[in-house]
């Protein structure tokens, strides 16, 4: 397998606030990599940082962000514009507002292809129709002339996906693509993404807070907490052997039908994600961790607890498993 995206030591700061600290992960060609975490853990910022779409007051830093073997960290704005929407596409959480209300679906879909490839309007429309059909939009010919407000949320997200595929990208970044949709549509969209991955050999970076989604679609998972990737590994390994107390806590929060007895409280992690400032050291989870001890204020080592399964915690070393 080859990596389509390899992020090393990504850091994003907004003034004194550290939104992402030292995040590293790899997305392979033809696989879905999920970044999972609570609100405010920096997962959306990570996605925007890869696309270089951060707000003006944000500062991005990294050892490298390699896309298809090229370090895009050093790319100029113009070079990045040529990559975005073309080889690397993104869809968002808010299908209701992510399309421009003033232009037709057809105009918005063909625009991205004509921006990156020299093609006629007719050919671009043909491709748009084909892709809309592929993502399950009925009567695609008619949709070309429709405006976003005439479509439902689920349809709009399908349009966003079809639009993202217009230039045949190698990487699709999906930032909570199903959060705003109802459950049945959610399942359809997830199935669609899985099919597209298979068919097109697409690498997908899926940002979500929902472990249920992770279990269903992810090949690899990275768990983020307070701007750091605290555990990463193959989905099966991570669910079978969650090694960070936070990962275990997250899994305990998911209600499993049949296992939860009536009247029993659901699992929860008390407290919220702390805001990271300069000068913080040690484990950011220690304030909420049931297994925290003195050592957690010191720099946290990374341990390999299985093949490609990394965890950033003092626990394995305390248990004598340090490597």
């Amino acid at each position, binding site marked *: 397998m080859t990596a389509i995206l390899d992020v090393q030591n990504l850091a994003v700061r907004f003034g004194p606030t550290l939104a992402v600290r030292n995040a590293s992960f790899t997305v392979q060609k033809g696989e879905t990599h999920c970044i999972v975490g609570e609100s405010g853990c920096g997962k959306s910022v990570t996605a925007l940082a890869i696309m270089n779409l951060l707000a003006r007051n944000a500062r991005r830093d990294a050892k490298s962000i390699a896309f298809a073997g090229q370090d895009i960290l050093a790319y100029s704005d113009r070079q990045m514009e*040529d990559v975005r929407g073309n080889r690397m596409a993104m869809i968002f959480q808010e299908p209701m507002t*992510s399309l421009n209300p003033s232009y037709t679906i057809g105009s918005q879909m063909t625009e991205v292809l004509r921006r990156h490839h020299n093609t006629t309007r007719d050919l671009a429309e043909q491709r748009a129709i084909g892709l809309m059909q592929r993502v399950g939009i009925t009567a695609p010919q008619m949709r070309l002339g429709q405006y976003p407000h005439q479509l439902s949320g689920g349809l709009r997200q399908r349009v966003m996906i079809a639009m993202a595929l217009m230039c045949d990208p190698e990487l699709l970044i999906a930032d909570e693509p199903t959060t705003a949709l109802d459950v049945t549509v959610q399942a359809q969209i997830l199935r669609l993404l899985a099919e597209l991955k298979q068919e097109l050999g697409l690498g997908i970076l899926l940002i979500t807070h929902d472990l249920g989604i992770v279990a269903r679609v992810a090949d690899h998972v990275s768990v983020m907490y307070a701007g750091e990737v605290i555990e990463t590994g193959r989905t099966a390994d991570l669910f079978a052997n969650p090694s960070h107390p936070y990962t275990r806590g997250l899994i305990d929060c998911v209600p499993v039908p049949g296992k939860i007895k009536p009247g029993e409280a659901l699992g929860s992690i008390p407290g919220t994600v702390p805001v990271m400032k300069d000068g913080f050291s040690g484990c950011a989870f220690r304030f909420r961790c049931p297994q925290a001890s003195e050592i957690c204020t010191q720099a946290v080592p990374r341990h390999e607890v299985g093949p490609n399964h990394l965890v950033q915690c003092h626990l394995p070393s305390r248990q004598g498993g340090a490597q």
Partner: protein
Amino acid sequence: MTRFIFRRALLALSVVMTVMALAFVLTRLSGDLAISIAGPGSTQADVEVIRKAYGLDRPVLVQFFDWTRLALTGDFGNSFFFKDKVSNLIGQRMPVTFTLGFTGLAVALVISLPLGILAALNENTWIDRLVSLLVMVGQAMPSFWLGLILMIVFGLQLGWLPISGTGSWQHFVMPAIVLAFTAVPALTRLMRSGMIEALGSDYIRTARAKGLSRSSIIFKHALRNAAIPVVSIAAVQLGFMLGGSIVIETVFALHGVGYLAWESISKNDFPVVQAVVLVLASIYIGLTLVSDILNALLDPRLRGA
């Protein structure tokens, strides 16, 4: 779209009818018209003769329908003061007011749109603050004062432009600039805030994620949405400019419709007053209709409404 225009046009027509009724009633509320036409020192007999001659002795409703019937054919009767047909008077003055209003609006847009966009693109920088300062100064400046200052500087001291009359296009330069200044502050602020809102929206993030160029993002995707409120206000401002340029027409001695309105009110020339009110209101209503249609063209969500 056709249904939308039809419905709006019907609405506009009913407003025009209401204005007709109001214009008619209000002129009659200002006093006994026959007495004011006859003038001070006239006898009761003179007043009665005038009342009969102008048909003011008939029931009010009959007078109203008579006036309405003729007005719909473009006949507004005769002016008491100018001894001419009212329609001729308005027809002669209209070109002056229209030239002034449209030039004023054009100047206002040429100044305020780039200024608003510039401020929005440089939000919270010194450029933005400079634009805000200019807008505030513009807002605080009375138009008659600006008119007089321009006359002194460009008309008298530099001698570049004529200071009064309507002889050539040069005569309209200063009045148009002064008139434009009444609309520039509002339009600039609206353009700026609309642009800031549009640039911060999700669809702009999508446009950036598509790798579109900066100019396409600003001028195609953001401007189209930011322009919607500006278009509405610009049409309304044009209405103000056409109907409310009395001060400027007076300062620069431009004999437009605003000036005519002021003259005929002071002379109680009620056929002219009624007609001017109706014509200006109709223009205003027409412009609102145009603004609605333009808005629907710009914003597809309104077309079904």
